[in-house]
């Protein structure tokens, strides 16, 4: 079992969600986040004074998934979210030790 954490452009969220529903991903958690990477920030101009906004708005997707579906998930996200420009985001994959479905008490693969 893996936890896939993807940092994406906010405007790509809906497209990614639709594509993931089409390939039957069991669920996801979305958080609005701020940060910087290669894209750095952007500048805003108020009455001629320029401000650098150092942290860019992004969304963070967290999806728990079985090992066999991992590649499909990663490929789907990458294909949809890629514009080729700096700021498209990143995908991190980590191991999951245990999963529990609270309603039934099922664990691990049964709970995914």
């Amino acid at each position, binding site marked *: 079992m893996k936890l896939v954490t993807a940092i994406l452009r906010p405007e790509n969220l809906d497209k990614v969600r639709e594509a993931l529903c089409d390939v039957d991903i069991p669920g996801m958690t979305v958080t609005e986040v701020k940060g910087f990477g290669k894209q750095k920030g952007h500048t*805003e*101009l*108020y*009455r*001629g*004074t*320029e*401000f*650098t*906004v150092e942290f860019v708005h992004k969304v963070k997707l967290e999806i728990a998934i079985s090992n066999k579906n991992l590649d499909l998930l990663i490929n789907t996200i990458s294909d949809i979210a890629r514009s080729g420009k700096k700021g498209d985001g990143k995908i991190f994959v980590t191991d999951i030790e245990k999963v529990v479905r609270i309603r039934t008490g099922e664990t691990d693969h049964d709970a995914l």
Partner: protein
Amino acid sequence: MKKFILLALLPMTAFADVINGADTAWIMTSTALVLFMTLPGLALFYGGLVRSNNILSVLMQCFAIAGIVSILWFVAGYSLAFSGDNPFIGNLSNFMLAQVSIDSVSGSIPESLFAMFQMTFAIITPALIVGGFAERMKFSAVLLFSSIWLFVVYAPITHWVWGGGWLGDTLDYAGGTVVHITAGVAALVAAIVLGPRQEFLKKPIPPHNMTMTFIGAAMLWVGWFGFNGGSALSAGGDAAMAILATHISAAAGAMTWMFYEWVKFGKPTALGSVTGMVAGLGTITPASGFVGPAGALVIGIIAGAVCFNAVIMIKQKFKIDDSLDVFPVHGVGGICGTILVGFFASKELGIFSGQGGWGHEAIVISDQLQIQLTAVVATAAYTALATFVILKIIDVVTGLRVDSQTETQGLDLDSHGETGYNL
């Protein structure tokens, strides 16, 4: 606004003593419009420009000023501005509006209405100054300052220009000197005396809600019809022409700033456009009832271009933290307008001609310009000096600034025990 006094001095005062229903209805409407400029117009315009943890402090400062100035104006402010023959200050013969009864007439409207209309001007002027010291001044100091300033600066200068004082020949239709120069200069002095906000020029201090600022600015545009149109103190051609000139100048100021910014910095911004509009409105204020629409167009364009550069100069070159740019927009606009009306009131400029002076007599440009410049220098210099002294005294009595921890945390929680947003 001074016209009624001149009319009252004419031999045919019989006409001036009768209340005119149309005039009264329009000035009542205008009174509401001018109050609407402060609450909620200016409060929202300023509120959106500060950070989210200071929003309530700005709304409360505008609101409390409206409350306290209303009472002080009723008690003594009106009397000090509009009674007696002294060239510098009125007297207290109208203390608590003692001489205003249901039958009192001022020009062709009830005097109670004239006092009330003037009250809304007395409210917005100190409220405008809030932009100069926003995000760092103690609430108690704000109230103390606004109250003293009303009596020491606003009432005397109103008397000089509109109340029969020594600057009575000045062409100032609705408050270029009385409102905008005094507010702008006072804001600048306050910004210097208080010193900059902690983050000024070190970290970004962006507006927290541009939608709020936009809504407030739009309310100012509408309210300004009452501010300038109402200053005719009647419901005739003067009022209509004042509104037309006001509107054209606002539009020209907004578009000038928008295109100027677009060319210079690459993008036409919402904040720039509405700021240009306010500049156009502030600048046309002294001129509104004296100039024609073509003159107003030129005035609006000049307002947009000059105030645009003034904002950048004050903040970036002189590094003065006039937080919400009161001086470069209102002060500089008021100065420009008070000078420009000396040209554009003239009847000899072809399509750019104006209506002439009070009572529409022809004016000689060179003579009038001297009068206008005298008024600009006198009001600016007196306001600067008096504001400085008032602030220094308050600094000793209560202190002016919140402590640095409060400033970092935001004024809302510390000064008012509330937060603007619980999301």
